[in-house]
């Protein structure tokens, strides 16, 4: 149905989806910046951009721990703490540190524009 004449299309007036830039740093120091749409997860942003080292075998169900990343210190507060289920699944990750997160459990928001995460040397 077409909108009534004279009515405003509010959607069109809103700014186009703001993208969040996320930097992935590999073990060897190589960096890649990708653009992620708010709403998707950091894991999805990595997989979509073929970032090596994020296997994500379970497709984001928090059931495999192969999407393990270390969140850069400055971003730890904004990304928050893992929930119980994620903490349990982190038991299956290798070399877990205080900055460890499963990237499929980090939702991208505008507040995460600039986020930096490091890929562990090894996923299981």
């Amino acid at each position, binding site marked *: 149905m077409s909108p009534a004449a004279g009515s405003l299309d509010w959607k069109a007036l809103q700014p186009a989806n703001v993208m969040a830039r996320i930097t992935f740093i590999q073990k060897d120091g190589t960096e890649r910046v990708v653009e992620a749409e708010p709403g998707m997860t950091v894991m999805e942003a990595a997989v979509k951009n073929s970032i090596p080292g994020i296997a994500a075998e379970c497709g984001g*169900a928090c*059931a495999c721990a192969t999407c393990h990343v270390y969140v850069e210190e400055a971003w730890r507060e904004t990304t928050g703490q893992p929930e119980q289920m994620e*903490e349990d699944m982190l*038991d*299956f990750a290798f070399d877990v540190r205080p900055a460890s997160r499963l990237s499929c459990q980090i939702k991208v928001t505008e507040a995460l524009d600039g986020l930096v995460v490091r890929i562990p040397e*090894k*996923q*299981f």
Partner: protein
Amino acid sequence: MTEDVIKTDVVIIGGGPIGLFAVFELGLVDIKAHVIDILDRPGGQCAELYPEKPIYDVPGLTVVTGQELTDRLMEQIKPFNPTFHFNQRVESLERRDGSFLLTTDMGAKFECKVVVIAAGGGSFTPKRPPLPGIEAYEGKSVFYSVRKMENFRDRDVLIVGGGDSALDWSLNLEPIAKSLTLVHRRSEFRAAPASVQKMFDLVESGNISFKLGQVTELHGENGQLTSVTVKAPDGSTFEQPVEVMLPFFGLTMKLGPVADWGLNLDENLIPVDTEKFETSEKGIFAIGDINTYPGKLKLILSGFHESALMAQQAHKYVYPDKKLVFQYTTSSTSLQKKLGVK
């Protein structure tokens, strides 16, 4: 090991949701099946990887968890009384004149007319911690499961992990081991609260030693561990003397022996036709996540459909002289009799 051969119409390799539903579809056409799975229970990925997570796209069920779906399938196939063989992996598939011979890693043998491969993403295999040089110790002083408790008698045993396997084996091996040390990265456990309590009681009484940390290095010679380096939560490291180590980091799916059965493979999947879901070889079917064909979707509902069509063709091999008449479960008295509802 037994030389007795179990003779049956059909063997289903894999007790995931699709293997289970295949029991149903085969049962409706009077074919009895044996189901073999390396896991200790039915359900495949649904039970092992996401028992408590919701599935929203099984037709007719708005939402169902992995475990619930498994339980419901088990209930649904009950009338057909399948025989399950758990904790066993099918290792080999031999062709005989008009039949197949399957052998498991436990030495069990099955002779059947039809093989249904419902092996999903492959057989569940313990995850190997990516510790440098671990391969050299595997099977000698690093084990991923306990096949014989005796191997652990009077040894310094190290168990790593915080789930049910780690806890259960800590409790079971503590009485026979010379010493038992449990290493886990945090003081919370995913395991049954009762086992956790028992473990802490044994720590209290000095029978189990519990250490917080993660194993980072292995030390030893000729496959024999002597110690491991453990990194504590505060970043400091210490050496833990040990003779045998059992790391429990969950399971992952590896294609496994299916790759060696001489079937055509396409990127670790078995190509099938979309009429009968039969492989390049007559009498061998592949259904569920393990197969591939143009347009394949790795969905439970696709696997269910594949089971139904597979059963039609399987019937031709098991009962070459009988003709199948298409019937509905709603209205066919003969189908209802089989289901035990008439």
